């Protein structure tokens, strides 16, 4: 029987992997995917909280509501983010963040 703790550990692992990827990967597509992974880690823990926090046999729907919101916002974010990445790739011919440093002061 899987417990809440198992879900939370899985969620924490996912989040850590995402964070690590955002911090240390150079490919911007990968960074972007890791970002999505961190969002979904949060989703997972929210769903787990919803599932294990029952009242009168029914799950707490507040958590699920929040998840739907996050999915919607993430979809919008992907659309914008990918568009920015494509525009950047067109102008610079690279997806390596080390090369994208014209903001250096």
């Amino acid at each position, binding site marked *: 029987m899987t417990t809440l703790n198992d879900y939370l550990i899985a969620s924490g692992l996912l989040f850590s992997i995402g964070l690590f990827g955002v*911090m240390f990967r150079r490919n911007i597509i990968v960074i972007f995917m890791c970002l999505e992974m961190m969002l979904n880690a949060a989703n997972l823990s929210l769903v787990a909280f919803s599932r294990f926090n029952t009242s009168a046999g029914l799950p707490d729907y507040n958590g699920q509501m929040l998840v739907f919101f996050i999915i919607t916002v993430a979809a919008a974010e992907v659309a914008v983010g990918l568009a920015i990445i494509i525009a950047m790739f067109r102008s610079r011919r690279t997806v390596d963040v080390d090369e*994208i440093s014209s*903001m250096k*002061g």
Partner: protein
Amino acid sequence: MTSTYASIILLFPLFSAAAILLGLKKKANISALVATGSALLTLVLSVLVLNAKEWSSVTLLQWSKVGGLELGIDLKIDQLSSGMMLVVTGVGALVHLFSLIYMKKDAGKARFFAGLSLFMFSMTGIVYSANLAMMFIFWELVGVSSYILIGHWFEKNSAADAAKKAFLTNRIGDFGFMIGILLLWAATREISFDGLSNAVAAGNMAPGLLAAATLCIFCGTVGKSAQFPLHVWLPDAMEGPTPVSALIHAATMVAAGVYMLVRVSFLIEASGWAADVIAWIGGISALLAALMATQQNDIKRVLAYSTLSQLGYMVMACGLLASEAGMFHLFTHAWFKAGLFLGSGAIIYACHHEQDIWKMGGLKDKMPVTFATFGLCTAALIAVPFTSGWWSKEAILEAAYKNDGLLFPIAAGTALLTAFYMTRLFVVVFFGKGRDSHVAGHAHEVPMLMRAPLIILAVLAVLAGFALIAGPVLGDEYAKYSQFHFSVPAIVSILTLALGVGLGLKLYAGRDREPVNIKLFANKFYFDELYAKIVKLCQDSVAAVARVLDGLLIDGVGVGGTRGFANMTGNALRRIQSGNLQGYACLFGAGVLVIVLLALL
């Protein structure tokens, strides 16, 4: 009635000037007639005022009233102002008539006559002013009109420079004048001559303050009457047209300083040692100017230095508490010096605007009227007995003899030099042969309209000193000056005259070149150079200090400091802007962590 006349005398020239400048500028001949008409009208009116002898004070315009300070255009009509007014309008009218011919073909004729009218207005204001504030305002106005008229031929650099020099030099004196007025106001709360006179008589002022205020007021005279050490502007002012020199820089404006001293003679009398300073400044100016005059070659400059010297006499008389004698000399000097200047104008006109006396010569036969009138005026200036100048110079010598042991020899020496340099001028210009055929060869007598003022002035130069003329104009007390009696000054005066003329004749009769060369006198004691050096030194030292301050404070601390600070903070902060996306993400995360921690703790 007299007050109405006086108001018209004051305002009519202003209307004339305004009419010319605003409407008639294109019509030069009409402008000239308007200005001349206004001058003649004021002459007639001032004779009427003098004749009526109704002395009064009238407020023409209340200008401002703040607390106890009342500023206004107040006319003070008394014997002194009416007599002075006759001199101003008399010489003014004659000069206007003379200018009709002298400036006939000048391109700026309308502007010239507008300037003359403006000057007449300003000078009338000085003469009639009943308080120091009004006198100061008109004092500045004559300065402006003098500036305009000296610089009449402003396309000549020398004329423009001379106008600037006159104006700036006068500013120095005027500054002192203003401080003097403020001191008097602060000490007595009075600004009108009558009020001040009462306050001083009541002994309301500390002696030291009174002396300081008197000297400050005297600064105005030093500037306007071109006394040592501010005398340098007057000779240069001869760059203006000759009628202007006759009217402004010989007869009236430069005499305004003396007139003002006579007006405030109650101050000088009460001021103790300040009176001695005034007398000595006058004496020194008289002697220095006479020495400089002996070596000048420009006919107008000789006369200009002579004017300086005679003004020195008048100032000395005021300082010796003989302001009546000073006023008397002002009165006689106005006629004969205006006559001399207009005479020199006639000569310059006839000699095609040549002013070097060594190019003239032999004009005696070619210009007999000018010769005769110039001769009579010269006689008056060098104090030939029974001419007007003799009576008045006698009065001053008498005052010097009585009051100060050292000033008398200075005054006598000046008289000797005056006789000497005027003999030189007269002999070189009128006798001998024409030295330059282009200049003196074609000379001919001037037209009637120019001769008439010369004749009138020459007659006055001889007769103005007699009680018959001086009495009604200046007051009956002046009659005593034109009675002959034997005294040391009288004998000295005749001796110096004989010696000066004799020396002049011996040195210059029949000469074609300058026989004596004294560089020091010819170069005016190097005053101009000295002043240029001093001004340069002052400017340089101020500039040096300013440069150091600019470098240290403005550039160093001010501009450099701000720049350095911005640079430093910028350099420190730019390390944050790494351009590294993940660096930003790190900082962002750290920031979130900090905020979360702060919120939780």
